[in-house]
């Protein structure tokens, strides 16, 4: 187990590389969902305004 985390002496390069990639993947999920939620919210507000001006 120790040997696995040590990565043959390359731990200081291998693990940060994996961490950065994982962070990019998770952020992409968060950003994509947030962008969709924002567009839905905007569309809802637009519909609401149309109904009121009618």
């Amino acid at each position, binding site marked *: 187990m120790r040997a*696995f985390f040590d*990565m*043959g*002496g*390359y731990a200081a*390069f*291998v693990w*940060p*590389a*994996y961490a*950065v*990639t994982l962070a*990019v*993947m998770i*952020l*992409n*999920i968060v*950003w*994509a*969902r947030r*962008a*969709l939620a*924002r*567009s*839905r919210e*905007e*569309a*809802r507000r*637009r*519909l609401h305004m*149309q109904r009121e001006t009618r």
Partner: protein
Amino acid sequence: MTWTWFHRLASPPYVYALATRLTPWFAWPAALCILAGLWEGLVLAPPDYQQGDGFRIIYVHAPSAWMSLMVYTTMAIAAAVGLIWRIKVAHAVAASCAPIGASFTFAALVTGALWGEPMWGTYWQWDPRLTSELVLLFLYLGYMGLRAGIEDTQRADRASAVLAVVGVVNVPIIHYSVTWWNSLHQAPSVMRLAKPAMPLAMLVPLLLMLLGFTLFFVALLLTRLRGEVLQRERAASWIREVVSA
């Protein structure tokens, strides 16, 4: 030959519903491929005879670099389709691609630097491959900045599409940079005409990661596409149904 499928793909309500339905079919297989690839790449694959365990960076670096190019190509094709046939959905696809591509280009550059330091003795070098990949990041950022700077979506779509299409010349430059010029970077070991230069135990996890990242891109794209389609549709009655739920 019927073109109904093509016309339906240009119809916003159809695309919105299709994207909603398809997303989990890409997201879950992506998660499975990536988990299997991580297990095989980090645990089962043997250390490299020259680079030891340091070579395992390939399993995040190569898929990120692949994403940076594949997403840009997708974006440029979608932008060209949008420009030529004036299809709103195509512009929505292009706009959805940019932030995904930019973030994976960033990941490719950072993981490459972390691989370069122990193997080449430097995090960064103004080398053809590294420099052209950095230019790709700036193309993505320029595309996003241009869109953000134009309020009218239709004008933003057209202006940014021209930038995306022109910028696509950088894609073959990045790919062939290692063969055209002297580069620190190694030549392709999988994306080439000859047999991959890698034993199966190292190649299989790499292919799993490449497939997993690609499926992940499609899931992200479909999610973003729904938002972009909604933004482009004013006062369409189908919107009431999908946002009131």
